[in-house]
């Protein structure tokens, strides 16, 4: 039976990992969609200067947060 327990534990670990992967993946996908549609939205809302500034700030914030988070670890 002991192998069965290890098996279960391994399955649990694998499914946890899969869930974590999915979370990360969907998080990143959400960013992609926000950039894609946000880009159109910002273009339709206002003048080019404003829209490019909005997209620019969004990207910089994203990069700052995304890269900054990992630097500490």
């Amino acid at each position, binding site marked *: 039976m002991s192998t069965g327990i290890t098996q279960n534990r391994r399955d649990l670990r694998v499914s946890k*990992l899969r869930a*974590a*992967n999915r979370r*990360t*993946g969907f998080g*990143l*996908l959400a*960013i*992609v*969609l926000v*950039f*894609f549609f946000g*880009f*159109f939205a910002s*273009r339709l809302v206002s003048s*080019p200067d404003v829209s*490019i500034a909005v*997209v*620019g700030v969004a*990207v*910089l914030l*994203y*990069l*700052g947060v*995304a*890269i900054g988070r*990992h*630097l500490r*670890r």
Partner: protein
Amino acid sequence: MSSITQPIGGHEHAHDDHAHHPTGIMRWVTTTNHKDIGTLYLWFSFTMFIVGGCMAFVIRAELFEPGLQIVTPEFFNEMTTLHGLIMIFGALMPGAVGFANWMIPMQIGAPDMAFARMNNWSFWLLPPAALMLLISLFVPGGAAGGGWTLYPPLTIEQGMGMDLTIFAIHIMGASSIMGSINIITTILNLRAPGMTLMKMPLFCWTWLITAYLLIAVMPVLAGAVTMLLTDRHFGTSFFNAAGGGDPILFQHVFWFFGHPEVYIIILPAFGIISEIIPTFSRKPLFGYASMVYAVAAIAILSFMVWAHHMFTTGLPTAGILFYMYATMLIAVPTGVKVFNWLATMWKGSISLEAPMMFALGFLFLFVIGGFTGLVLGIVPLDVALHDTYYVVAHFHYVMVAGTLFAFFGGVYYWLPKWTGHMYDESLAKWHFWLSFILFNVTFFPMHFLGLAGMPRRVPDYPQQFADWNMVSSIGAFGFGLSQLVFLYAVIKCIRGGKPAPAKPWDGATSLEWTLPSPAPYHSFETPPVVR
């Protein structure tokens, strides 16, 4: 940098379902194995490199001497456009993803990529996209002929080849985004116990940051070409001046993607070089942390300099000054990287196998490309040199002598691990020297042409540019042909050769060298413990 206490190669085949994988062509179509997919990516990249290279042959043949000899101006424009698109989206980017697929799981001690099926999908999107680009040559009106930058209004006027190009870019963009999500997730979630981020090989670091860049800019490119598409067919006027749009807006958006794209292409190359140089200097990488910070700094700065591609469009003076200063600032982190590589070699115990030769060739020529980049970043000089052959010389020094040479170095470096055989060192050396010399014969004269004022993307030119163009063409034919040496060397290595030990390079330290050569189909199914 990381000492490994429990180097376990996974020969155990815990998941039996993988043991019955299909054979023949179906093995490659259905594979979810990161090594198979890495191989697919690399072969696809090389195929596209040859296709794009053939287009360069056409270009250089037409430019061999003044006058129109071989092709029509329209077809010439289609060649320059497709050469650019295919080399960037077909050869360089997939090549980098190929390396990532092969090496990242093995370098961080993961069994595979996080999303194995998506990995298969993101590769198999590429061949149809490439096919669409090639088919566009044969549709009425021909392929897109507005340059790889696709500037409207010219690209709004063109035939359905342009639509195919737009769709191809959409598909390749989707593939890149999926690949990036996969790579980020793999690196963040699947590292072996003890493999902290700051212990990862630098190649993984550069790819992590590259993947973030891709996720940020690929949707923007997709948005820009979608707008182009709606301008073409649905009566919108985002960029169409005749309908009240702003053609310059496209340039802003395109380069907002395009400049980070430059770093997307070069950062993985930095990573490969940062693996090779310490190995063959038998010394740890100098300033690991500052290398990571430099890559991050380059990534962030890359979003603030896009308008330096547009200095002659008539931006406001204050804007121009800002973009010039920001552009010049990139020289600092780039310089830090070069100095760190030098310091890594300093007082090492250097040997000059083929990967190291390519790394040194990379360093030498990339620095030239960096300097010409600095020259182009200085606005008054850009006014004299913008859209001339100087620019062509500059980006080929960065893309070809930079990224491509790093890829060659990477291939020779890891071929023993991939195939289990040592490559033929003297063939590789021949490949290096032919490439190095002929590259310079091809592209160095382009600096002179640009300084003398020859515009780029012209099928014909005035007589004072004749001589350097001929030199350049001869160099290009030679450079292209010498890549056959590479193909031969790789095939020879795959088919046989001296068996490679697990760690053929005595200076190598990262995790992949703890696996036997060739690397087993399934590796690190039980994660190694890194201390």
